[in-house]
């Protein structure tokens, strides 16, 4: 039996008929057709499915779609600095080579956004611990941290998230 759930995804209010047992990750990827959010484990171990829900980062594989009733969800698809302009964090990930195979990247970018919203001035070690739950097996860790710190630096110069 499907349930009707409404949520705001990337600023757009949507209503979806979803089975009650389906995870938010699968809802976004299937019913929502937003496949930028990735499945790397489906059990909360890897961070590839990170989205921002009501302002906080969550592993969307650990949230049921129906729990998102009334929630505001931000995914990688909603990140831009303007029409056809990448978001500040995306821009820094490109500059610093933060994506290799790219599979962990959307989750890490969403985690970074959540981190910088809360702490626009993180130390290197704060960055490392904040994104420690996002595994990058290609292991771009050094470059990812450089990208996050560069984004933070631009925030200090007045750019916005």
């Amino acid at each position, binding site marked *: 039996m499907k349930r009707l759930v409404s949520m705001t995804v990337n600023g757009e209010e949507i209503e979806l008929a979803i089975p009650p047992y389906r995870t938010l990750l*699968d809802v976004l990827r299937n019913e929502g057709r937003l*496949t930028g959010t990735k499945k790397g484990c489906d059990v909360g171990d890897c961070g590839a499915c990170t989205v921002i829900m009501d302002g906080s980062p969550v592993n969307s594989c650990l949230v049921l779609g129906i729990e998102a009733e009334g929630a505001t969800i931000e995914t990688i698809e909603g990140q831009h600095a303007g029409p056809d302009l990448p978001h500040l964090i995306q821009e820094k990930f490109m500059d610093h080579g933060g994506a*290799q*195979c*790219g599979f962990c990247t959307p989750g890490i970018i969403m985690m970074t956004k959540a981190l910088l919203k809360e702490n626009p001035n993180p130390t290197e070690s704060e960055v490392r611990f904040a994104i420690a739950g996002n595994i990058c097996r290609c*292991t771009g860790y050094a470059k990812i941290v*450089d990208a996050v710190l560069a984004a933070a630096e631009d925030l200090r110069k007045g750019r916005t998230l």
Partner: protein
Amino acid sequence: MNEAAPLPKGNMGEPVARIDARLKVTGDARYPADLPVRDVAHAVLVTSPIARGRLTQLHTEAARAVPGVLDIIAAGDVDGELERPQFGNSGSTSIAPLHDRRIWHDGQIVALVVAETFEAASEAAALVRADFQAEEPSSGFGSPGIEIIPAAGASPLYPENPEAGDFDAAWATAEISIDETYSTPTQHHNPMELFSTTASWFDGDVTVNESSQNVTGWKNTLARQLKVDPEHVRVVSPYVGGAFGSRGPMTPRTAIIAHAARRLGRPVRCVVTRKQAYTTQTYRAETRHHIRMGAMKDGRIVAFRHEGWELTSRPDNYVVGGTGTTARMYGYGAVETKVSLVKADRNTPSYMRSPPETPYVYALENAMDEMAVALAMDPVEFRRVNDTMTEPIEGKPFSSRSLMECYDQAAEAFGWNRRTRGIGSMRDGDWLVGMGCATAVYPTNVAPCTARVRLTADGRIRVQSGSHEIGTGIRTVAAQMAAERLGAPFWSVEVEMGDSSLPPAPVSGGSTSTASVCSAVMKACDAIRARLFHAAVTANDGPLSGLAPADLGIADGRIVAGARVEAVANAMERMGVGEIEEYAEFAPEGSSADAIANLYKGKLEMRMGEEGAKVKYAFGAEFVEVRIHRLTRETRVSRLVGAFAAGRIMNPRTARSQLMGGMIWGVGCALHEATEMDRHSARYVNTDLQDYLVPVNADIQDVKVILVEEKDTDVNPAGVKGLGELGNVGTPAAVASAVYHATGKRIRDLPIRIEDLL
């Protein structure tokens, strides 16, 4: 410019950002399981809970009663429809899970449940009950019931054990000797993208969307298994979420899913759980090593013996065989090697990033460090004494070897001279500081490859080659090669890869891709240049008419000879063409006459680094600083510095990225990774990313990569040595060396864990 984009030195290309960086950071890069497929059914595997025995009965009634279940395929259901998988070339194993009732290993596929939804298939799969006639399994080294056979001759890839001189006689003359054993554990690739297969049939043709490192090989392998002509099979893999060897050979699931889709008359998608991937995909075999090394007091090694044992499955002789590299690494004098396979009730292991070098060089470099200590020599100087431009097995020269240059540059950047010799002599508060180093090495392999390049009159270039973007940046470097040869800007190039309908490229393994693909792209571009140059010089009234084609060059969209120029577009207009397209076949020196034909058939002929008149290897030197807590023995890698020389560097940015990723992989290998096994049941225990430890961001601190200038025209036309599997080779031994320096404990069995240091 930032650190991610090192300034090019001599023989290096521009550090351009990845051609697909934008797609990757926006989530627009589509991996196979992202592809929307109309009317797709979802499949879930049912796997064996025992490691050895026979499946006697499968009870599927409860599973079939789950609403939405469409089909259950089990032993017997593929008879006559599907050929058995084969081991070798593009196939990971000969274990035929739905042909046989025999259970060869833990987690073997016993059935496939197909349903309308993933959730229904999962629920039904959990309800399938199986009866087994279980037998006592042998889990691996030291278990009763294992079979040990010589590797030499057991696999065509390992014909013989390399050796030179009289080891016993030389060993007897040694003034200092090391006689030790080392081991490395089972490891799983764990790429971030889950393994998945999506198969759709249309009018007798099947398209398989699955992340692959070898679309052409798989197309042929799959066609044989499905009993159809290869022309009816297409394998598509545009983006791959990490591979590291795990997506090199095709595993039995792929054909089973394609068969399920054929049987159901509907597309079928199977996304394998991470847990099930531990047993249905491949892994790095655990290895044991016995090394004897004899040296004179002046540091010269006179005798080296490396014996290895490697785990494999009962039916398949997968050989790791790293002695080919360790036997050639230094100027040893006499060398003796031997490799044995230990056959147990396990799934068949396979390639994982630097398959032979990771375990074998770990053992060798650990022994080198032990010998340096025994000789009271600086480990860098000890390597210098034994450095050689001639490999000891056949006495062939190295095409180039910048090992000591790497050591010198890395040592300088690392501050090796600040290291004090004594064990535990360096401290920082409660932390014991240790410094160590080791050699990284990887053979320069190259393989036959084809490519098609099209230049249009408006200056756009399209490159097509069935290689694979697995995170290496191959699309980017292929575009750079085309841009450079055709004198066009990088942004004007578009690259298509990851599709078996493109001109075939070799498996993206053995670090061959950049060398092979760039050599083929270069050849196609050169054919385009030749046509343009011919048109330019033979024109009656052109600015370049009458010149020799050899005197022409191409830059910024113009054909040039000194001050005389003609726009490429002009030349094309005169030729009366809107585009020039060339298809090129590149076969490395020494290839057989059938090399390209075989490539089309999915039979790979890779030319290995040790073949040919000169041996070809890329080298590097890695330095590591560890901090070990005085009381808790927590071990942190605080600094990593690596210097690497790999011939022509197409793109310093992607090269640095590959090497850095490799070095961090090496930290995982040194301190974290091991798939643990319950020895009694021969089953893996830690089959998820919570318990299979890999480095996370918080484990990594300062990592520095130095690209050392090197030119080598012997390796291949592109002058490129592969480096995707170089960075991780030296790290584990360098960490072990640093741990010894900090604590005096010589850990010979990986991974190094707190309990080893208490």
